[in-house]
């Protein structure tokens, strides 16, 4: 008989069992007159559209979460991590020199690029492959994406400051030595000046 009570017991049994149950095992655990097949059918029907389903695998039955919900059972947690120097430099080179091939990136950095570096940047959505370069080997080029511009609040690539701007903002230390000593005239400035005013040569000589 497939009364509600045997359906309930079977439901509890299948829920609590550590292993999928065969019909034989269910028979052993239920009153002899139970219509296991009917109860299974009723349960299968009942759970058809639910978040949990009754499934058969190799003649054994078990409750499983619905396959379409697999993603919902995984909690995505994002951990903030700092980008490696290699990745940072690679991204910067691509940003400033795009489209640029991997070989060219390596040329600029002077070291080989790990595959993982480009992968990480691509996963983050900052770079993507561009067109192939029409040169021997047709190498792939790399370009930045709109996500990259968005991530760094840049309107367009032309908003990237030039190297001279970077120097001016003090982001870069200027070379030490001659230029760095304030109050002393620049060696090269002197030349330019003397070129502009020829008579100064005389003055200079007289100064000695």
């Amino acid at each position: 008989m497939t009364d509600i009570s045997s359906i309930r017991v079977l439901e509890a049994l299948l829920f609590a069992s550590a292993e999928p149950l065969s019909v034989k095992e269910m028979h052993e655990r239920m009153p002899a007159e139970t219509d296991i097949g009917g109860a299974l059918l009723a349960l299968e029907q009942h759970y058809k559209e639910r978040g949990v389903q009754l499934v058969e695998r190799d003649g054994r039955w078990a409750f499983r979460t619905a396959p379409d919900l697999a993603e919902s059972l995984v909690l995505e947690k994002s951990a903030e991590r700092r980008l490696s120097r290699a990745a940072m430099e690679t991204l910067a080179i691509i940003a400033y020199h795009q489209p640029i091939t991997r070989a060219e990136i390596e040329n600029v950095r002077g070291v080989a690029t790990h595959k993982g570096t480009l992968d990480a940047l691509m996963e983050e959505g900052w770079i993507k492959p561009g067109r192939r370069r029409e040169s021997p080997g047709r190498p792939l080029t790399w370009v930045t994406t709109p996500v990259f511009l968005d991530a760094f609040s840049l309107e367009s690539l032309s908003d990237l400051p030039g190297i001279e701007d970077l120097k001016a903002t003090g982001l870069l230390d200027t070379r030490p030595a001659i230029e760095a000593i304030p109050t002393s005239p620049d060696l090269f400035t002197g030349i330019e000046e003397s070129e502009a005013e020829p008579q100064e040569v005389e003055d200079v000589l007289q100064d000695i």
Partner: protein
Amino acid sequence: MSQTATALAEFVEDPPRLQEHAADALLLNIDGYEGPIDVLLELARHQKVDLTKISILQLVRQYLGFIERAQALDLELAAEYLVMAAWLAYLKSRLLLPRTPEDEAQPGAAEMAEALQFQLRRLEAMKKAAQDLMTLPRLGQSVFARGAPEGLSVRTQARWTLSLYDLLKSYGEMQQRKEGATYDLPSFNLMTAEDAVARLTRMLGRLPRQGLHSVWTTLESLLPEGIKDKLYARSTLASMLTAGLELVRQGKLEIRQDANFRPIYIRGVGE
């Protein structure tokens, strides 16, 4: 309280027999009891009345009977049973004897009896609570959790953090590194010190020599003429002076400047 207790005691049919029976039953089982209060509670149950109406006096008599019986049988009882017996004997005397003035400062027998009754009731309540707990549907015994939970997983995804500042600084530093790596000193067109020494040595023979009527020649007049490169022109003066000083050191030349910014004169040293 004590009056009620005494009154109730009167109604007990055959106290000595019950007492004996209870004492021996307890003694047989003494290991099964959790101390004197537990035994008292067991004795109290023999009164078959609500604990709030228990005869404390009767209970005391039963307990003291139990202790006596244990001693008669030469049974070793834990010290706490004897302490309890002493306390109950004291309580009994207080319950039976009229209250004397010096008792005023001490807790009344009724209060002591009430306290004992409270503890018995509380212990009984907890024993019942323990039993009730054990009748609840137990997880893993009568209620079951899912046998094969898939489990909830956590997938950690790295979010790379990078500020525009980091990016620009990184690019700038790299450019700087690159410049540094390929930086060559600019080669300037200069008169070297060697050239100047050679030139001056060559000209040395034509120079006026040291002597009474000797003349001094300006260093400037010895510089190459018609030089268009200003930097080269400036370097010739510096190098020729250096060369002059070198020849002075070698004792081949004399050099003189009358004051700062005055012309520099040289002449040969005669042999």
